[in-house]
């Protein structure tokens, strides 16, 4: 059945690093354990599941759209991540811009009211490509009216300065000595809470949680 004209939708995208380093530090396992929990939490909350849509994009050498923007109550199981390759941020930002444009157009064609998308960026290392141009194309509201809010998380070898540049709404870096797997576990919990709280408000608003345990907020870079 086609979506109802007038539905209000708050889109969320999870941009997750699945480079080879994520396997060694246990990051992939943490993500693959956290995603089903996120699925269960959101799908079981009618206020959230009716209002938010979740998409999953992973990146390594290339970027892939593992889960198109979906109502999680309609999703049987979340796809899993598999570690491989390098850490190309640019590929992810480029794909994300295309996907957001496509999704908003699709939702509007169905008469939905679309709130500004929110993106959770998760990585465990520094970028291996030239990513800034693609990032700018994505986040510049002048050139891209559909520019999303980005909340960036970095663990293990992630660079705090880079994370601060990527995030447009908030940025968090794991503390020294914190196990990447445990940090990612807490990040996914925070991510879930952000989705739930933002979607539950009468007028969906992105409500960013405080720094997850084991992480520290990074000042955003004002470009």
């Amino acid at each position, binding site marked *: *059945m086609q979506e109802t004209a007038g539905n209000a939708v708050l889109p969320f995208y999870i941009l997750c690093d699945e480079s080879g380093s994520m396997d060694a530090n246990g990051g992939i396992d943490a993500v693959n354990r956290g995603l089903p929990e996120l699925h269960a939490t959101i799908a079981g909350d*009618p206020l959230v599941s009716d209002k938010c849509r979740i998409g999953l994009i992973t990146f390594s050498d290339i970027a892939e759209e593992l889960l198109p923007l979906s109502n999680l109550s309609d999703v049987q199981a979340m796809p899993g991540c598999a570690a491989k390759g390098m850490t190309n941020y640019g590929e992810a930002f480029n794909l994300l811009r295309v996907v957001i444009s496509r999704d908003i157009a699709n939702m509007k064609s169905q008469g939905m009211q679309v709130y500004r998308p929110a993106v959770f960026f998760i990585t465990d290392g520094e970028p291996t490509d030239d990513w800034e141009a693609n990032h700018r194309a994505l986040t510049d509201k002048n050139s891209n*009216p559909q520019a999303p809010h980005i909340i960036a998380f970095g663990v293990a070898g992630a660079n705090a300065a880079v994370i601060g540049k990527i995030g447009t709404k908030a940025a968090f870096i794991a503390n020294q000595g914190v196990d990447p797997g445990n940090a990612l576990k807490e990040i996914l919990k925070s991510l879930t809470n952000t989705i739930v709280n933002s979607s539950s408000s*009468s*007028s969906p608003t992105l409500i960013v949680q405080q720094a997850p345990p084991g992480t520290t907020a990074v000042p955003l870079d004002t470009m």
Partner: protein
Amino acid sequence: MQKSFHSGTNKAIFGLALPILFVAFFSLSGCTPVGQDVDDQRQGASTSSPEIITTDAPKPDAMQEAKPESQEEAKPESQEEAKPESQEGTQPDSQEEAKPESQEENVKGAWIPVVQVFLTLVFILILVWLLYDFWKKKPAKLAPVDRPGNPRGKDHLGGFSPKSKPPRPGGVPKVDGLKAGSKSPVIKQEPEVSQPPTVRAKVERPVLSTVSEGTTTEVRLPNTQTADDPLVPSTPGAIEPVLDKAIVEVEEKQIVQVQERLNIKPPQIGEPSSFAKHDWWDKDREWCQVSPHGMSSDVVCDIGTFGAVAIAAASLRGHKHKVSGEPCQDAFSLRATQSMAGQKYVVAVLCDGMSSAKHSEYGARRTSQLLAWSLAAMVEDQEEITEQRVKSTLPEIFEYCKQNLMPQKRNQFGASGILPKAVVESDFFTTVTFMIVPASSGEGENFEVIVGSIGDSAVFVLDNSTSLWKEVAAADSSSEILNPATSAFPATFDARISTIFVKKSDLVIATSDGVGNYINVRGNQTSLGTYLARQWGKPVNLPTFINDVGFDLKSADDDRTVVAIWLSRS
């Protein structure tokens, strides 16, 4: 033979003659009936002739010896042989020979009155029986059994044999061939025999009484009776036998309805929401909880007319607050007032409490009441209501509302659970939207409605000629991405005031964002907008209005309030 046998006249004659003959026979002959006991005879004789018994009384032995003779041997003599002798005047030679004769004569004399009494009683009994029989069978004896034209199959009593046709209900079965004006008593009896309604009513009465009780209960079921349903008597005593069948049918139909349970559902706009897929009382879900502070206000509504306009308003608690067990944070208030020039106005105020405010449900309700009262007072003090006049007066009105908004003591103005010393102004933040609508009947086709708002609650006008909604006062929704930010009273008095021009056939509504956000999207009317335009082209009754406001639309989980004012009641 039957005719003569059953003739009462002949039987009476026969019955009268018989005892007369008996009486005459026994009186004249003086015979003792066969088998009469000697002792009885003696006793009867002693009562009738005591002297004879005393003089001629035999000894006991002699009596015992003479007993057989007197009964068996002397009896023939007295009847056949001794009788001639006595008539001839001969006397008996000895006592022993004469004794039986004298005793026999005495016995005869004593038996006569006894037999007469007996026969008299028998006669009376027979006479009574004959009279009774004559009275009882009086009609039968007049039955024209063999009259010409007597219908085939009809018996001698005027009834109907099993082979005859059944009598027509409700009427006397006319006898074929019976002359008009015939006054046969048999015919008069027929209606008593052929009254099926009486018999049927007695048979079905228990069903009637049951039905009447059952239907009385069924009729009270909410919303189970449609315009096509037959009327069901609500008073058991009012049921008449002729309605038995129809009432039974009604009962059966309503039992079916009870089994199916007519549960009104709100209009479904597109894909069902998660809430529409489950009952609110589902034991596995806590999706509809009562507010612990009371006044959940799941439905608050008003309808009515004033002057030329019709008004319907309703606030419904949204799913969001049902899940969290919070009260509805929307509120409205209506006032009917009149200017100094005698012009009628309806003042409507709608407030949508901010989710971030701790006591927004109170803030919205209290603000709507204060503002409606203040605006109505302003109208009453003016000759003419203009946008400029409202703009100049509104700051003072807002200030008054702000000063009187917060409760000064516990439970004041229904402020349940609010401690006056523990609250701040932001705990009562709310949006404000008001309309001042002319309500006087007039010749004009166009009217000026003054609207004002703080926040994102919208005002729409429905053009009935196009069935399209036009948003006239609200937060801007034409931008690419929705902006949920909104201002609130009493943080600001900066209200947008404007005058809108409407036609007499238009409908003006103020809505909270729980409804207004889903009527038009980027200037395009949604499915909900089209539905409401079709429904509310003219005033609707209150249940319909509430049900419409309770539409199901995915993601529309906020509280909903609509104040609708139809500018014409025709």
